Structure formats: C-alpha cells, structure tokens
C-alpha cells in the first residue's frame, strides 16, 4: 500500500484541475501579452482568474499578482516592500517560525542595513499580538507573520496581529500557504495588506503562486523584464498554472466543509490510536489551535529520519519537520522556537493529511508505525 501523509510538502494534483489546465497547454496556448485573438483570449482568462482569486480571498482583482510560487511571492513582498518604503523607516519584523523564504529574505535585508526583529512564538507555536507589540515601533515598515505554520500547523490570529501592525503604520504581510482551505481568508476583514499563496499546497499545480499586493502599496519588483503584471512581475503569464491554481482554490473552498470534517476525523483517530498504542509520544504545538491536517509528533528515543526512511520502505511518505529540512540536516528552527528540549529536536515526524487520504490508509500507517517504532527502539541506546 502507498500512503501519502506529506501534504504539507506538496499535494497531488486533483484530476479535475488537470482537466482545466490542459487546454491552456494545447489549444489556448496564446501569450496573454499578445494582441491577436489567441493572446487576447488568454488575457481575458487571466483577468477572469484574478477576479476569481479576489472573490475567494475577499480582496481586489487588480491586487492579485501571479508568481512562480510562495518562495517568489515571499521574497518579492518582504524585500520589495522594505526597499520601496525606506522613507517610512528602517525596521522589518518577521516571526521566528517563518518559512525559510521569509526568514532568509529578512536576513538579506539585515545584511543590507535594515533592522530586522524576530518576534518569538510561544510554546504552543503561536505568535501573540502582545509579543509583536513589544518589538514594533513607528519605524517599522513591514510585519510578516505566517497564517499557519508549515511544520506544526498552528494558526495565528491574523486579525489581531494586523491591528497591531496598523497601529504603528506598518504594512502587514502573511504567508498563507498552509491555510487553504483550513481558514476562510478575508483580506479586508482580517486587515491583510499583502499575502502569499502557492498552488501546489491545495491540490493545484506546482510552479504557480499568488502575491497579493494591496492597492497603493509601493513595492520594488524582484523580476524585471517585459513589464507584465503592471511592471511588478515580468515574465510570460503561466496560463496553465494560473488556471489550475484558480480552479484548485475554488474547489478547495467549495468542498471545504465536508473535507474539514473528514480530515479532522482521520487526524484525530490517528493521533488517538498511536498515542494509546505507542508509549512516550508527545505532540509538538497546540492541539486545538492547529489545522486539522497536521500532526507533529515527538518519538523520544529514536531519530526522526530513521523513522521516516523505515516508513518510506513500507510505502508511507511523511517528513521530519518540513521537506526543506530533509536534505540540509539542520534541526527544526520551529521546534527550537517553541522550546522543545534540545535532546528531542531530532526525534520528530510531521504527518500532514490531505483530501485523498482514506481510513484504510490510516489503519495501515498505524500498524506500520508501531512496527517501525518497536524495531528502532529495540536498539536505541537511549532508555
């Protein structure tokens, strides 16, 4: 049996989404910047796509920019807003549990002379408005705090955090990559100025994302060239990707209620059962303030990658922390940030569920995991 429990890393493309993408590769392949009929038809679909994204997110169509993914969106927003608004001040605040693409963008700004502050998450994995309030001042240009953490699935109170940012005249950006469809995003109500999304995290295609850039916000483009996206992001419009992302986003919210119920049942059943049948487990991050798709479990006396590889040979895909941490061999900055005992930083597995998971897959995984843990603990020197 093959079981994919790494939906936090990426998701399987929904076949219905693929069907919507295909014509844009084979028939409607025009360049949306061309003025002949094939180009113009692509252009109209592109404009329609912006309307559709804006409708779901509660924002404005002209603020929707399509990028190659969230890494580009986050780089563009964090660096671009900072560089274009230096008359306001010199300070950038990001949380200490951000995805590396936000963190490294902030670090690049620090090297360029900006004052960068990292607002700490609490032991539940939540960034509180109080913690932000302690660091923010009138010099702050931008606050960037993720909606949902990618490793532990914890959810931040974006409305409260953006209020703090606005009190000091700072823009508020959120990396909402892991929030779809777990939260209903309402850009205006939540006070979001800038937002990043990635298509492949919600059963859409890879290589396409959204950078939402609120009206009137000055931003320096990351990619220059032909002047697409109002000069904010050059490069030929990726119509197959864009149309796939939009449809996947619509499906995610259309089928949200039933999906949330099903995924929560699977996740809770999995956690309840393994916690009962395997001793010494601990959940990383709050159980209640997290998405129903995420579980991050500490296994104590055995090493995470060994667990991952053993499960992998049984056909089960999970991750240690995040997919990025799999090859760089660094302990998770998120688990460090929430104060996990340093002895246990290398003993964790993230199980991330998705819409294609079934009960029988979960039963198979429980059985396999029990065997894996038993085998590895059998020759662990840690008692």
């Amino acid at each position, binding site marked *: 049996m093959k079981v994919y429990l790494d939906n936090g890393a990426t998701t399987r493309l929904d076949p219905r989404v693929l069907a919507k993408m295909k014509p844009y590769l084979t028939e409607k392949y025009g360049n949306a910047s061309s003025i002949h009929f094939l180009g113009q038809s692509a252009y109209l679909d592109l404009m329609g796509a912006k309307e559709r994204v804006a409708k779901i997110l509660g924002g404005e169509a002209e603020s929707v920019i399509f990028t190659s993914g969230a890494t580009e969106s986050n780089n563009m927003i964090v660096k671009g807003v900072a560089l274009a608004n230096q008359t306001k001040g010199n300070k950038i605040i990001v949380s200490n549990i951000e995805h590396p693409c936000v963190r490294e963008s902030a670090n690049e700004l620090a090297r360029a002379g900006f004052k960068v502050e990292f607002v700490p998450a609490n032991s539940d994995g939540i960034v509180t408005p109080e913690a932000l309030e302690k660091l923010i001042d009138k010099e702050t240009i931008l606050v960037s705090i993720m909606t949902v953490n990618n490793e532990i699935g914890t959810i931040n109170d974006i409305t409260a955090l953006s209020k703090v940012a606005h009190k000091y005249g700072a823009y508020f950006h959120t990396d909402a990559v892991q929030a779809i469809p777990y939260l209903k995003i309402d850009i205006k109500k939540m006070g979001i100025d800038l937002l990043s999304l990635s298509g492949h995290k919600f059963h859409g295609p890879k290589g396409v994302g959204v950078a939402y850039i609120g009206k009137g916000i000055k931003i320096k483009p990351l990619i220059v060239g032909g002047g697409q996206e109002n000069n904010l992001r050059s490069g030929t419009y990726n119509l197959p990707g864009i149309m796939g992302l939009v449809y996947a986003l619509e499906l995610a919210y259309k089928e949200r209620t039933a999906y949330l119920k099903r995924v929560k049942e699977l996740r809770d059943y999995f956690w309840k059962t393994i916690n009962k049948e395997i001793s010494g487990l601990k959940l990383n991050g709050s159980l209640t303030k997290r998405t129903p798709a995420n579980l991050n479990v500490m296994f104590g*006396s*055995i*090493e995470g*990658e*060994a667990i991952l*590889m*053993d499960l992998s*040979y049984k056909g089960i895909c999970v991750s240690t922390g995040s997919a990025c941490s*799999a*090859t*760089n*061999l660094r*302990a998770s900055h998120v688990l460090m940030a929430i104060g996990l005992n*340093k*002895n*246990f*930083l*290398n*003993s964790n597995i993230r199980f991330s569920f998705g819409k294609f998971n079934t009960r029988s897959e979960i039963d198979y995984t429980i059985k396999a995991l029990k065997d894996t843990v038993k085998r590895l603990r*059998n*020759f*662990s*020197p*840690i008692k």
Partner: protein
Amino acid sequence: MALNYTKKTINHFLKPQNIGEINKPDGYAQIGNMVCGDQLDFFLKVEKGKIKDVKFLSFGCASNIATASLLTEKVKGMTIAEAKKYKWETVVAELGGLPSQKIHCSIMAVQGLRKAIADYESRQVIEPTFGKKVKKVKNIKKTVADKKK
C-alpha cells in the same frame, strides 16, 4: 539533493547486523549525542587479540545504522591491529557509496569503534619485562583515577 541510498545500505538499515549490547564488554565507547542527532554505542569482546564479538546501539538516521552494521560485520574476527586500521573510506566503498551529506556517519562509526578499541587497550597492561605476556587488569580506569587524586 535526494537521499539515494544503495541497496546494500538499505539492507543494512532494514536488517542491521550486530545490534544489541554485550554483557561485561572488554571495550565500550559512546560517540555522538542526541542533540547532534547521531549517537552510537559500541561493545567489544576480545579474545587472543581478536575481536570475538562486537555489537552496537544507535540513535541515528538510516545511514548511521547502516554504517555501524557494516563496520561491525567487517571487523568481527579481525585482530585489534587490523580493526584499528579499518577506514571510513572502506565503509563507504563497501556500501557502494553514501550521499555526500551522510559521509560523516561512516566517519563517526569508525571513530566510535576506535574509541571502543582504545577503551579495551586502556584496560590492558603489558608486562614490561620478558615482553609477550599480556595481563588483564580490571578497573584500571578507576585505579588510574584514584592515583591521580
């Protein structure tokens, strides 16, 4: 970069040889720790200058387990002198290669084994006169420590 382990490495990970502890070992060493994400414990039984038995425990990744498994398999039956010379490069070659970020596993396994051999040797005292005779002294570490005080 993906972690492409060879079949041999995978086999050693899935069915590691020589796992466990040796009761009253002639040599013992621990290398690495949980914070770094790798730890190996080696146990040696030595008879007539040869490794009669060797076992290990692991808190580590797949290649940590596989390198220790292969190494123990290879040095079992070797003389102490031979085992001391066993190189990490040979571990890597025997496994058919390791991903570059996993090379340190083979180095750690070899260092751990050498540390266990050093522990064994520290427990031995060679009679200065007439050479050849080897006398085993138990708790020599403790005796040395007491003398230092």
